[in-house]
């Protein structure tokens, strides 16, 4: 009698575990934010407006590669690639590298053209604190495309902390 009870108990426990394992497939544990509601692009709005003149900035086509954890903010390697055939009709005209928290939000403004051949750039940047880094590309047709990456910086680049909050 006692023995039977324990087996049914075990069955119930196993059933429970199986049910629990199936749950995440049905409902994702971490809900994904809709891309439009993500904060990085919005927080950079004042400078974005200056760049785009109010034109919409779409996410995509730009690939920004940057370490998620940067040990030293003085030197953070960064790679940007833009999906573009780089022809006379369709090419990247300007590429902006923007920072959310640096005292000067525009890290670099890159001019490209059909002669560039490939819309790609690798450089090393400074970052004042953990933040989002945004790359915005202006195409030949005037459209804007962007990508944002969240970077954690353990040692900030800015020596005068009063400049940033």
């Amino acid at each position, binding site marked *: 009698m006692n023995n039977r009870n324990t087996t049914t108990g075990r069955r119930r426990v196993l059933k429970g575990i199986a049910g629990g394992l199936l749950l995440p497939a049905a409902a994702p544990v971490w809900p994904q934010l809709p891309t439009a509601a993500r904060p990085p692009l919005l927080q950079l709005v004042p400078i974005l407006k200056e760049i785009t003149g109010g034109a919409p900035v779409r996410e995509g086509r730009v690939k920004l590669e940057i370490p998620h954890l940067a040990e030293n903010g*003085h*030197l*953070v390697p960064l790679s940007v690639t833009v999906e573009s055939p780089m022809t006379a009709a369709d090419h990247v005209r300007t590429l902006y*590298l923007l*920072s959310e928290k*640096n*005292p*000067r939000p*525009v*890290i*670099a*403004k*890159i*001019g*490209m*053209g*059909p*002669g*560039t*051949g*490939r819309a*790609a*750039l*690798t*450089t*090393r*940047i*400074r*970052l004042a604190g953990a933040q989002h880094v945004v790359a915005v590309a202006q195409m030949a047709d005037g459209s804007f495309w962007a990508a944002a990456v969240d970077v954690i910086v353990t040692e900030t680049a*800015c*020596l*005068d902390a009063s*400049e940033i909050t």
Partner: protein
Amino acid sequence: MSVARILVPSQAKRGEVVEVRIAIQHPMETGFRMDNNGRAIPKNTVSNLVCRYNGAEVFRAEMGSGIAANPYLQFYFVAQDSGNVEFSWVDDAGEKGSASSAITIA
């Protein structure tokens, strides 16, 4: 005096997308640092860099204090004819620098 190291392949095929690298020796002073007497060190960055291939501009970079010291750039251009790849830059103090390398189309 601005010193730079550049890496441009000496040979390429016609129409090939060629990778170039440049590293300029420059402190890229942010303008936010103080010297030992507490005075602000003026901002001095390589504000403008242009890469020309046989006279035509293929790449341009306007850099601010967000670019790390000794700025390094790696980018591409399309090789068409034998000729020169020229880099020229100027910093906020007005100091100019340049470097060039020849490329042969095989």
